[in-house]
């Protein structure tokens, strides 16, 4: 009983997160400006991380947690670097 | 004590972080975590000497509770805006004069305002203390200025004098 319940709720959650992933990718692809793409990329990272956590619950192993932690860290560093670039790159031009 | 633990709060959080990462309280990892916590505190002391002191722990706890409730409430509000429940909506920038000057208090205020969906910290003018805030669902400008000043700035000024 609890197995089927978890199976279907995990499936629904993963579908929703996948859809969220697509929305964020659309914003990254379409822009229209560089800052929109950066915000989209940040959201993409968070959605990917949440998706990995649901995969962790599905498989029952801890390994996904560590991947999620690394993604959370890398997402912050890359977004901060991109934001810095947006400020600096424009000043030099 | 000051020599050994120049930043007790930072050392404590490093220690807890280490234990959480290792998922154990066995003596071996705990001892290693203690070393990490102490060395972390010393390293921060070399970088900057100003020490974080939370003056009013009770006020800080109350503020944390208020912020948690506000985040929950504005989550629902912004979700309604996105789902198109409110047709007549107007977003815009507002200017808020701040009297808070402590850099750590300002950092805390920035995190609170940006973590709450619906308000985003955009710019701060350190000379006269003007804050530029973007608000998704702007109804009454005065109301927002009062909310930020009373709800968040007042307790933060007590915590970081």
């Amino acid at each position, binding site marked *: 009983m609890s*197995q089927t319940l978890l199976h279907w709720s995990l499936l629904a959650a993963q579908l929703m997160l996948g859809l969220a992933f697509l929305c964020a990718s659309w914003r990254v692809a379409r822009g229209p400006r560089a800052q929109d793409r950066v915000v989209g990329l940040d959201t993409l990272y968070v959605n990917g991380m949440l998706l990995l956590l649901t995969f962790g619950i599905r498989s029952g192993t801890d390994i996904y947690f560590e991947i999620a932690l690394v993604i959370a860290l890398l997402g912050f560093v890359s977004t901060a670097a991109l934001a810095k670039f947006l400020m600096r790159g424009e000043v030099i031009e | 004590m000051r020599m050994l633990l120049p930043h007790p709060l930072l050392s404590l959080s490093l220690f807890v972080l280490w234990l959480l990462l290792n998922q154990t309280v066995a003596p071996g990892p705990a001892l290693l975590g203690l070393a990490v916590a102490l060395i972390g505190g010393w390293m921060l002391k070399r970088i900057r000497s100003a020490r974080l002191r939370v003056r009013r722990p009770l006020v800080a706890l109350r503020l944390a509770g208020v912020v948690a409730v506000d985040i929950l409430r504005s989550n629902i509000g912004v979700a309604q805006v996105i789902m198109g429940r409110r047709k007549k909506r107007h977003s815009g920038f507002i200017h808020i004069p701040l009297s808070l000057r402590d850099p750590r208090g300002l950092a805390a205020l920035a995190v609170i305002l940006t973590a709450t969906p619906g308000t985003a910290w955009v710019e701060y003018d350190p000379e006269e203390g003007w804050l530029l805030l973007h608000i998704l669902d702007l109804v009454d400008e005065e109301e927002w200025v009062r909310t930020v000043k009373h709800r968040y700035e007042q307790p933060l000024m007590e915590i970081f004098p």
Partner: protein
Amino acid sequence: MNHAAELPLLVAVPVAVLLLVGAALALTGSIGLLKLRSFYERLHAPTIGTSCGMSCILLASMLFFSVLQSRLVVHEILIGFLLIVTTPVTLMLVGRAALHRDRLEGSHKVPPSARPEDHAAAAQSDG
């Protein structure tokens, strides 16, 4: 999915609800990123996913693994703490970069400075 067979229903229901609510909130945030019209409005959307959406899914994971391994599994708090601290920083950085770029282009949709205009004018006439 066999490992979940011995999970009591009393735990499975809250885990399922938390997962669904968290995923729905994350989806709402991403839809907002798609639907809202201006950049500064879109800046608000991702915070839904990183505040409540993230907390719900982390709570579900903590509850699930704690019951499954019959010990306290709380290391998800690390991710939560990390996201709560870093999201405002990145959004502030991106917001400031966008403001800077808009001002360089001479856009009239953004205020010229953090000071209100009457104050800025008063300061200029004084100087």
